[in-house]
């Protein structure tokens, strides 16, 4: 009597539900192979029902069956279906729009304190770089690596330096240089972010070094009476670029800060929270660096007027500030 009862439950479950499990498996496999969009409307309607049925089968099987293969199969199937049913359902485009409209500025606003600190460090770097090189040109070589200098060093004449600021003949070469700078700067910002977990120390160093490089070059050009022109040459894209690097540094600092001073939370939870917010800001930093690369590659070759260069640089900065910090209506829904 009781023997028949045991026989009934586990095997009946399989007899009654196996077809459903197979159907769910086919749908999940199709979704995994191609994409959720490859599913027909019918499949999409069926999916949640089949998923819940499989889940309840799993509960029953765990309580009544000792068939290891059956239980492992159901566990695997339920997990795969779960990630699909409760996975991300927003379309990439909507997510993209949301990133620009809300997530990115919000993440940057959340970093305002770190941004101030990072900006301060960068400015200190610039000042230190400038005064060191102004006092003794020997510092230049140690502050500006050879491949970044691109021939702009103390052996160069005033004329050749002026040429690097206004020359448009070698547009293609300069475009390469711009691309190189873009990838280089992005890598530097990613490092500034990723190294933040080491209590933010490497981030601080990176910020000061970046500032020092700009300061050293400024000192070089100033020595040849080209300081104002050089600042314009830097400004047109540098306002965007240096701001981006500052934000990356701020992202790194926020992680470092949360590791050192986790407050009420555990260090892990605290680092995770700031890490995710900083990750969003970092995606934005890459976008900013792309804009900076465009301004550098195109704008600077086409616009040779100092005032225009200053104008564009300042305008960009104002635009970024407005985009990030202007209060805006709360999103609903």
């Amino acid at each position: 009597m009781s023997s028949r009862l045991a026989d009934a439950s586990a095997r009946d479950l399989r007899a009654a539900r196996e077809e459903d499990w197979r159907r769910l498996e086919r749908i999940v496999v199709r979704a995994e192979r191609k994409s959720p969009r490859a599913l027909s409307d019918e499949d999409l309607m069926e999916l949640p029902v089949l998923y819940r049925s499989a889940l309840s089968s799993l509960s029953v099987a765990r309580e009544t069956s000792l068939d290891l293969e059956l239980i492992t199969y159901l566990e695997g199937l339920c997990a795969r279906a779960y990630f699909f049913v409760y996975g991300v359902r927003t379309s990439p485009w909507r997510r993209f729009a949301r990133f620009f409209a809300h997530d990115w500025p919000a993440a940057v606003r959340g970093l305002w304190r770190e941004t101030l600190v990072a900006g301060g460090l960068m400015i200190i770097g610039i000042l230190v770089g400038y005064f060191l090189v102004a006092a003794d040109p020997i510092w230049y070589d140690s502050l500006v690596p050879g491949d970044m200098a691109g021939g702009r060093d103390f052996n160069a004449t005033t004329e050749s330096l002026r040429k690097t600021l206004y020359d448009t003949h070698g547009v293609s070469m300069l475009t390469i240089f711009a691309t190189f700078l873009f990838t280089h700067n992005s890598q530097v910002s990613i490092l500034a972010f990723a190294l933040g977990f080491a209590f933010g120390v490497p981030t601080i160093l990176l910020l000061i070094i970046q500032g020092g490089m700009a300061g050293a070059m400024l000192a070089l050009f100033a020595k040849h009476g080209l300081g104002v022109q050089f600042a314009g040459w830097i400004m047109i894209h540098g306002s965007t670029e240096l701001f981006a690097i500052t934000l990356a540094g701020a992202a790194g600092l926020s992680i470092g800060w949360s590791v050192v001073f986790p407050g009420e939370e555990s260090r892990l939870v605290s680092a995770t929270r700031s890490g995710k917010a900083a990750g969003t800001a970092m995606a934005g930093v890459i976008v900013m660096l792309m804009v900076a690369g465009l301004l550098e590659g195109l704008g600077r070759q086409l616009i040779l007027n100092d005032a225009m260069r200053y104008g564009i640089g300042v305008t960009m900065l104002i635009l970024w500030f407005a985009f990030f910090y202007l209060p805006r209506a709360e999103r609903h829904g």
Partner: protein
Amino acid sequence: MARSAKPANYAAFHREQERRVRRTLITPEGVDLSLRIADAGQRAGAFMLDFLIIILGLVALTLIALGLLFAGGIATGPAALIIWLLGWFLLRNFYFVLMAMGARAATFGKRTIGIRVVARSGARLTADAVIARNLMREVEFYLPISFLIANAAQDTGDSLATLAGLGWAGIFLFFPLFNRDRLRAGDLLAGTWVVQTPRRSLGRDLIGHKASPSSVHFTDEQLDAYGAFELQTLEQVLRSGQGESIATVADTIRGKIQAWDVNVSDAEFLNAYYEALRNRLERKLLFGKRRLDKFDRE
């Protein structure tokens, strides 16, 4: 339920191992999915596959750039260089991010191995977590690698710097081995972990398929010799269908339950015993008694 806690109890050891790699994830429906953490081998395998793809991408990119250069000569040189620089940048930083955020929600390597990234909280995996997780790769992998390559290429022979680079790479490389959850630094920061979601096939049920029920009968004492753990080990032996192990296991069981007189082939004997034991244990299960293994006596 009191369990005999023998240290040499393999079943208990096995359960402990399982408990260590399982993580609770309660679905909104209230069922625990009990996910398994991906082990270090799977992680390494998936990463190597992905890295291979990146390297292949880099080779293809270089070939395209070189092709452009040879086709157009000096005129297309800058374009080729720019394509190469930008392509490598995108490949290096966004292969993982875009693959993980794409429709299939896992990189090629992870899909092949059957693992995926999941938020530790059980909530859905968000884009910022994916970005944070993968940008950390820059420090964990690319930085020490490019450092070592640069050092080797310049042949500066600065062994101290090389050692420091190796140490740095080592810390991050072996980081997952030093915590229970196999987290790498990026996982730590992004609040994620990597779990197994393998594709399992469902074979036939081992009982209930024969036309006529087995003629072999076992006494209750004979069936009380083993518990669920042994039953499931037997299931695996039967499913693997290897003659040698079937013979060995049959001998062991015959010896244990004193059933030398049962005059059928080893496979038949094991099938009959499996069916009888499972029926008995599942019946007990219905009454709320789960016998974990042969040491588990009421």
